[in-house]
């Protein structure tokens, strides 16, 4: 039932609005709305009950194991939430004078410093509001760098075919042509193809390492050399940073620019799809181009650095300074882990992934890259089951919901047919992983014995499988007052 369907004309929540109707006679009629906005008219209890019950229809980390590959669904410490919502932070207007902002600014400065250290980069800007905006900032900086050097002929960005879809989309947004680089059989970038592709048109390459195939790109040093030698720069997509946190640093691998998904690696909440935060880090040569604002320190005092300080900046990406509240959560998380906690993230997320991979393999699941180590995630392919029993990756995913587990990522990366990309994260216990493996074992049995059961899943959720075609064809994206 929609909140609109609970609406009754004249129902109100009097505590929440000013007591009287204001005198708005000063407002000329020609600017005035003729009918009240069609918002629901409900009581406070209606609202609390409606949204509380809606929330219960969600899977979430706080309620379920959520091994969604490439998404790093780890525990979001509750203290990060409460400290980011301290009144001093919550009420601070973004334009508050720096004299009453030193608390916030000091956190942001220290966050920049910590992110520099853990990525091996030379400077950081926190302003991008999501991974995709971080990508944009990164490629825009590459663009600005070449332009500032008068190196105008570089029109191409190289993107491995295993890359996230955002990578080519971003390159396009920045005015580049995208050139795909194939992957070799073992999951690494095809070096010969890369060498063939680089040249004077190469502005740079966008790389995720570990790649979306769940393996570490072993020849990263060679790739860096090939691209750098051709005059291109290296962009690091930080989606999988969790896998190598504190173990290897993108800066040391030779990357020139990197975005980090703070909502993955640094455990800020995903919130049903956002807000995230996509801080960017750069090597020395890209420093002048960082998006503004950045926090600087002068003696004991922190201040915003803006276009005055960074005249070559690619500019502003948000009206203020990015998703500040998310940044505060990441700051708290990093302080809780501390320097010794960072590599443990990589250690245990890798251990968990390799453990689940080993156990699924022994159950008879096919791995996409059976000869490789898993990083913090790995790929199972259902190609064999899809052919034999018609049971697809989607079917297994839906059936997992019935067993109380969120599904892994399905059909990504596009390179592997019928794939499940499984990322358990370091915060899940062996017992949870074992229970998950057990469910996967049962589903494998079901797929053989009663494939229709698997294909019909889920059965235990608020809804059965949806008609997605109808959703797109008979578009219904907003409740219509007439229909209510």
């Amino acid at each position: 039932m929609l909140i609109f369907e609970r609406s009754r004309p004249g129902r109100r929540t009097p505590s929440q609005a000013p007591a009287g109707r204001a005198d708005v006679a000063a407002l000329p009629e020609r600017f005035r709305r003729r009918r009240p906005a069609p918002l629901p008219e409900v009581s406070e209890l209606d609202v609390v009950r409606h949204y509380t019950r809606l929330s219960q229809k969600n899977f979430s980390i706080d309620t379920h194991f959520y091994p969604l590959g490439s998404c790093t669904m780890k525990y979001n410490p509750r203290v990060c939430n409460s400290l980011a919502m301290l009144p001093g932070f919550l009420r601070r207007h973004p334009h508050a004078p720096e004299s009453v902002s030193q608390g916030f600014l000091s956190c942001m400065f220290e966050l920049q410093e910590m992110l520099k250290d853990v990525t091996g980069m030379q400077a950081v800007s926190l302003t991008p509001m999501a991974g995709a905006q971080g990508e944009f900032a990164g490629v825009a900086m590459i663009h600005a760098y070449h332009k500032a050097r008068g190196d105008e002929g570089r029109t191409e960005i190289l993107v491995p075919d295993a890359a996230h879809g955002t990578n080519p989309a971003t390159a396009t947004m920045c005015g580049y042509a995208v050139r795909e680089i194939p992957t070799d059989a073992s999951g690494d970038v095809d070096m010969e193809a890369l060498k063939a592709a680089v040249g004077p048109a190469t502005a740079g390459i966008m790389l995720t390492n570990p790649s979306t195939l769940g393996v570490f790109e072993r020849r990263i040093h060679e790739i860096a050399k090939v691209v750098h030698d051709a005059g291109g720069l290296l962009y690091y997509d930080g989606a999988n940073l969790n896998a190598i946190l504190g173990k290897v640093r993108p800066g040391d691998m030779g990357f020139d620019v990197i975005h980090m998904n703070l909502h993955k690696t640094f455990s800020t909440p995903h919130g049903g799809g956002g807000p995230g935060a996509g801080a960017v880090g750069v090597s020395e040569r890209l420093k002048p181009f960082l998006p503004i604002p950045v926090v600087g320190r002068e003696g004991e005092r922190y201040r915003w650095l803006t276009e005055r300080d960074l005249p070559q900046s690619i500019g502003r990406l948000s009206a203020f300074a990015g998703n500040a509240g998310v940044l505060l959560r990441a700051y708290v998380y990093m302080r809780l882990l501390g320097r010794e906690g960072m590599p443990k993230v990589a250690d245990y997320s890798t251990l968990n992934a390799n453990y689940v991979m080993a156990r699924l393999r022994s159950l008879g699941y096919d791995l996409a890259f059976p000869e490789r180590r898993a990083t913090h995630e790995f790929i199972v392919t259902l190609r064999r089951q899809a052919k034999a029993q018609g049971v697809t990756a989607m079917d297994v995913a839906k059936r997992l919901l019935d067993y109380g587990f969120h599904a892994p990522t399905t059909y990504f990366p596009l390179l592997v047919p019928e794939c499940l990309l499984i990322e358990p994260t370091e915060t899940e216990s062996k017992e949870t992983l074992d229970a998950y493996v057990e469910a996967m074992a049962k589903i494998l049995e079901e797929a053989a014995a009663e494939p229709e059961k698997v294909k019909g899943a889920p059965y235990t959720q608020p809804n059965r499988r949806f008609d997605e075609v109808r959703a797109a064809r008979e578009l219904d994206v907003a409740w219509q007052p007439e229909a209510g």
Partner: protein
Amino acid sequence: MPFIPHTDTDVREMLAAIGADSIETLFDEIPAALRVDGLNAIPPAVGEMEITRLMEARAAQDVMGLNFIGAGAYEHHIPAAVWQIVTRGEFYSAYTPYQAEASQGTLQVIYEYQSMMAGLTGLPISNASLYDGASALSEAVLMAVRANRRSKSQRVLMPLTVHPAYRSVTRSIVASQGIEIVDVPFDPVTGRVDPAALEAFAGEDITALVIPQPNFFGVLEEVDALTDWAHANGAQAIGVVNPVSLALLTPPGAWGRQGVDMAVGDGQPLGAPLSSGGPYFGFLCCRKEHVRQMPGRIVGRTVDADGRPGFVLTLQAREQHIRRSKATSNICTNQGLVVTAATIHMALLGPEGLERVAGACVEGCGSLVARLRERGFEIPFTDERFHEFVLRVGVDGEALLERMAAAGVLGGHALGRDYPELSDAILVCVTETKTAADLDRYVAVLEQARADLAG
């Protein structure tokens, strides 16, 4: 090892199952030369108690006084229920609703949000939100370029009465795509888009016109005329609106003869705390014919295998997972949690509550203007405004605001950086949060600060 549950026994058993000697072995594909030694700039771990004490001390440093700053981020009352529900684990720690059957909570909230935004803006389609108002404007400009197939120029008219940061972000984002953003000056008497300046573009190939309501100075633009001008000149009309004001003001879908093509804005006034500038969210609504040019996620209602209604992410063919380099945008997140807050906020206030809030803003703002006029202050521009106004203070705006802040009143936003001709002026905002006593205090602190500076 905070948040890592493994016991020594667990690790032993897991390594045995893997067939590895140590955790370290699992990293053997990483070239040894690359391995990092230690992280020196990251302090050692602290406990929750220690970080709590530290953060409380820092937050206490930033306790603001009475706030009259607006300029794109507005202080409103947020019902306590809003964030108590939003931070429930099921909303807070869920991911993008890729498995619709297990995410009906998030999906229905977004559908309701889309419906509310459609209702507020008077346009039939809303996406699931974008990063913030400024980036939403950038995306609307890109969308207008895609949608206006008759226009070849990629020229977009951007009045100087649009929020300076929105203009600057739009430039950053569309910079590499050959789109030209052309300034349109404002009338120094009214504070509105200068009709004569606009008319100078008549007959040219213009892709879109951006129309702010209220504009950055708090002034109400002649939106009907501007919208009609755009359409008469083959341009798309993009409204930039304050969502709270829409409880009272004509929705952009009804501006002029046929309404705007797209409306965008920042959703922050609908339940997001000021929070140093974010997370907020941008909304983007459009006419039906533009839906396939819309960036970002969209939730649609459909039925399941049993015929029961429910919600899914839809029109994903526009998105980068599938379209890759041909996607409408690289955006793949929305600001889901803040959208959840806005949805609950709007449901709590309802049409009348939100209208009362908007009305109290208008009245309070008028009330402060009257007080200041009485004390001889100059308030330029028209009095047809929402809840912000430009105030000439006769001294340097930034210096004055520093003085006022020291007296516990954040007096407004200095205009000199973005409008050099207004360097002795500040932008002042009054919302429903201000009482008559607050307005009196404002005037007193302002006069004292000015006297101090002058003297």
